[in-house]
């Protein structure tokens, strides 16, 4: 299951279409970092609304994606974590430390644009 990556100005938006396997997540990690380099993007939004479960591997991969992208000087925001998915993550002791999160795509974009203003 490929995750489509949409380019909107300085921002890349990756939207999960369904539950992703480990292989899909690894693929996304490579694809996103490549595109951030290619387009010199300043921000990335990962929309996980369609993700059924965020387990240890998914959480770790999202953290890694955010860290890699930060090393490129860009910001990542995870949006759309469903309430029950968040509850399960807390119970499992999973954290997205150091990764920005927002309610939805709109708030994610707002967050990034604020960040861009700060650095301009």
């Amino acid at each position, binding site marked *: 299951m490929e995750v489509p990556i949409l380019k909107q100005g300085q921002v890349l938006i990756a939207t999960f279409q369904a*539950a*992703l*396997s*480990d*292989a899909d997540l690894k693929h996304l990690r490579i694809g996103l970092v490549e595109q951030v380099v290619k387009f010199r993007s300043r921000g990335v939004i990962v929309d996980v609304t369609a993700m*059924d*479960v*965020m*387990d*240890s*591997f998914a959480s*770790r991969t999202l953290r890694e994606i955010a860290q890699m992208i930060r090393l490129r000087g860009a910001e990542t925001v995870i949006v759309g974590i*469903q*309430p*029950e*998915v968040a*509850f*399960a*993550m807390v*119970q*499992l*002791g*999973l954290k997205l430390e150091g990764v920005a999160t927002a309610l939805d795509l709109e708030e994610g974009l707002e967050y990034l644009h604020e960040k861009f203003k700060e650095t301009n």
Partner: protein
Amino acid sequence: MSVGELRVAINSDQDIVMARQKGRAMAMELGFSAGDATLIAAAISELARNIVSYAGRGEILLKPARGPNLTGIGIVARDDGPGIRDIPQALRDGFSTSGSLGIGLPGVKRLMDEFEINSVPGRGTMIAVKKWKP
């Protein structure tokens, strides 16, 4: 209404997604709320992940569970992998030997109502968990 047993072979990371989706579907069929079904799916995901990470292959068995005044879902994860040498240690938060997890078992225990583990080094591991309907 009768919901039967379901066996999901775990051979690759693709099967992790399959197992948790089947588990969620069964939980919903058994009358769990969508929220509880997500917790059950998360637990199955970690159990299946342990099989793939440590044993390579195994199976997840999903079945309705019945107690004196309770109904729920039972999940059994089985493999013939290397087994767990020190079970108390594996149940402590933050412990991992594969370097990738360290979350799995204590988290699964917190998500579920009953947790049973049997492991023989060199022979394999069996973890049986249950979640009761509130």
